[in-house]
């Protein structure tokens, strides 16, 4: 798979997945995806990641849309692989930044001070409408971050799920050989068991997600689940997952 994949395109609405990794630290390789939603002439950038991929991502994004058209940059949570480049993006664009209100006070540690450009998300989430369609920030707290959201795009029916469904793989074998849910389970399990807080959180999120019509679930690490079988197999597995505090004595 290349470094760029069009997940959805209907002429006015487009979802693009970039898979840019920090190649200098191959020993600790983590396959990371960044996403761009373009609606007409404005865009939302999702989980742009760390400084290490900033330049490459900037270039990749500007092939699709001019940077000054990025209206929002959304961070599913506070982690460095999600948000560490926030300062760079705040300098290079005029976008507003969306993140759980829990992380606002920590952003200055990334060098970010533009508090008036922040849209802190309340725990219950929020909805941004465009025409009949909308983007919805779906609460995903404690999966793994205590202030965590998935982003649902009603037009493409893709759920950008952040670390939920993330496959931690040593190289890109996943994208070639282990794309189906059952083949990638071995890459999902260790990560979810340790990083996710507990089954209650998994069930709460799943029951919200089950209410949404879904074409794909696109995690921040690994390939999207894009068949009905994979989506339901994944949700079923995730709902029943014993993880985090469930496994503590």
């Amino acid at each position, binding site marked *: 798979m290349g470094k760029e994949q069009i997940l959805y395109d209907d002429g006015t609405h487009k979802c693009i997945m970039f898979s840019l990794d920090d190649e200098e630290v191959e020993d600790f390789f983590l396959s990371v995806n960044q996403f761009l939603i373009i609606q007409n002439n404005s865009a939302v950038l999702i989980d742009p990641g760390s400084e290490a991929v900033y330049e490459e991502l900037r270039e990749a994004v500007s092939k699709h849309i001019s940077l000054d058209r990025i209206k929002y940059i959304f961070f599913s949570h506070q982690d460095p692989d999600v948000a560490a480049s926030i300062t760079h993006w705040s300098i290079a664009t005029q976008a507003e930044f969306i993140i759980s*209100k829990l992380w606002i006070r920590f952003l200055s540690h990334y060098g970010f*001070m533009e508090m008036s450009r922040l849209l802190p998300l309340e*725990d219950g989430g929020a909805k941004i409408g465009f025409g009949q369609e909308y983007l919805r920030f779906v609460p995903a707290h404690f999966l793994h971050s205590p202030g965590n959201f998935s982003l649902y795009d009603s037009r493409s029916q893709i759920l950008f799920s952040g670390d939920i469904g993330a496959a931690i793989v040593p190289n890109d074998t996943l994208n070639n050989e282990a794309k189906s849910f059952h083949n990638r389970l071995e890459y999902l399990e260790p990560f979810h068991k340790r990083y996710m807080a507990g089954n209650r959180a998994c069930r709460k999120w799943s029951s919200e997600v089950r209410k949404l019509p879904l074409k794909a679930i696109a995690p921040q690490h690994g390939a999207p689940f894009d068949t009905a079988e994979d989506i339901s197999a994944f949700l079923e597995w995730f709902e029943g997952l014993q993880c985090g505090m469930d496994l503590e004595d």
Partner: protein
Amino acid sequence: MPKLKDLAKLASSYTVLIVEDNKTLLTKLQQFLQKFFHTVLSARDGREGLHLYRQHKPQIVITDIKMPEMDGITFIKKLRFNDPEVKILILSAFDDKEYLYTAIELGVFRFLKKPLVLEEFTQTLIKLLELMQHEARIQLLKSYEGSDNMVVVCENKTPVLASDRFLDFFALNDIEEFNEKYGDLEDLFLKQEGFLYSDSISWKEKLLANMQQSHQAMIKDSKGKIRHLMLKAYPLQMPQLSREDSAVVLSMVDITGLELLPHQEKEISAQKQQEATVKVLNYLKENGSEVHLHNFYRGLTITDKGKIAFVSKDRIALKTRANQQKAIKKQNWVVIHSPLLPKDVICEEVEKLDEEKHITTMKRYHLIDSSPSKRRTIRVEPKEDMRMQLCFNEHCFEAEQIEDISINSVRCTLFALPAGLEKGSKVMITLQQEGGLTLEFEAAIFKIWMQEMHYEVVANYNLDAEKEQPLVHYISRRQMELIREFKHL
């Protein structure tokens, strides 16, 4: 039995006192009530009852009439003398008229006849507790009612009680009529950018999550006219409500008269705006609402929340964090932003800075059109080791100082200007930092001011990715440096 569930929910925070000389009945009652009430006290006669009452101040007293030592009626008379509020139930085998009249006179809630029927007893207790809950709500509503606000009490996000002013506003008789007409408040507020209700988030969630803030809202009154409201939610401390009920008081003030609604297109005079500003600032002060304070430190944005401690026509005192005070001290100004203000307000001179109480008194405040709170482009003051050269028609001049720089413009001071330089002139700019960034690019002169001893020049540019990258890196590093510098100030 679902009724017992209701009883448990209603009674859980109350203390009840039972006075009864029949030991078997007393024990039975005690066992039953203990399942529902927070505390159950029991006494064998009026004297003991009075003693316990003084010690524990129960909200409900259930008493027999015929008892040794002190009888029920004497006991009730003594209770009433000090406490007109306590709720009393009589439990007695006697029910002749004389007792009934005395009971009414003494404000007894119910007269229950022995032998006790559990069903009836439960029902009576529920009725009593519901009444008490309602009285508590009214009390609460009154405590939030001021000279010109409308008040609604909501439980579980549904209005349960409203002040007369609120009902008058909608020309309705009671809250039931309101709920019938408006549902559960959900569609009450009109959609308007920057107001409580925009489509990005349910206004209820927003309100509940931002209890500290005042919001503005648009609403249609009984005649269908659009009114402009300021509103604030208060979390409810109401022990009578069990914990699972989330209760809030909404307090609203009609400020349509200030003519601040964005859809009103006619020009508002500066004087009127200033008057409205003082009013809004006063409202914010009185409600203890948070405002946002904006400042810069060498281009670094310093924003904090603050509260208005005092406001008069020419002075304003702000309570804010030490960080913001530090910035105000350095800059000698601060900008106040609130969604309720027609525009941002700048305070231009520090009069007094109380670092212990975190209160800064500022003089000379007024509305401004372009505010730093709307700044979208980050501009920082570069470090002293950054040099800049401006070349025009082969003539190059060294900038005396670079005031600030962003990815698309630079502001600097020069002692002399190349001949013929004017707005729109194409120039070459070279930025050079010792052992660091070196950049050369084309720019256009945007503005030139002549100062007493020097010129101030702003040049704009559009960099391609290759040149923009190092500048973005430089600015982000510089921001980090400034954060450190500001912290150690």
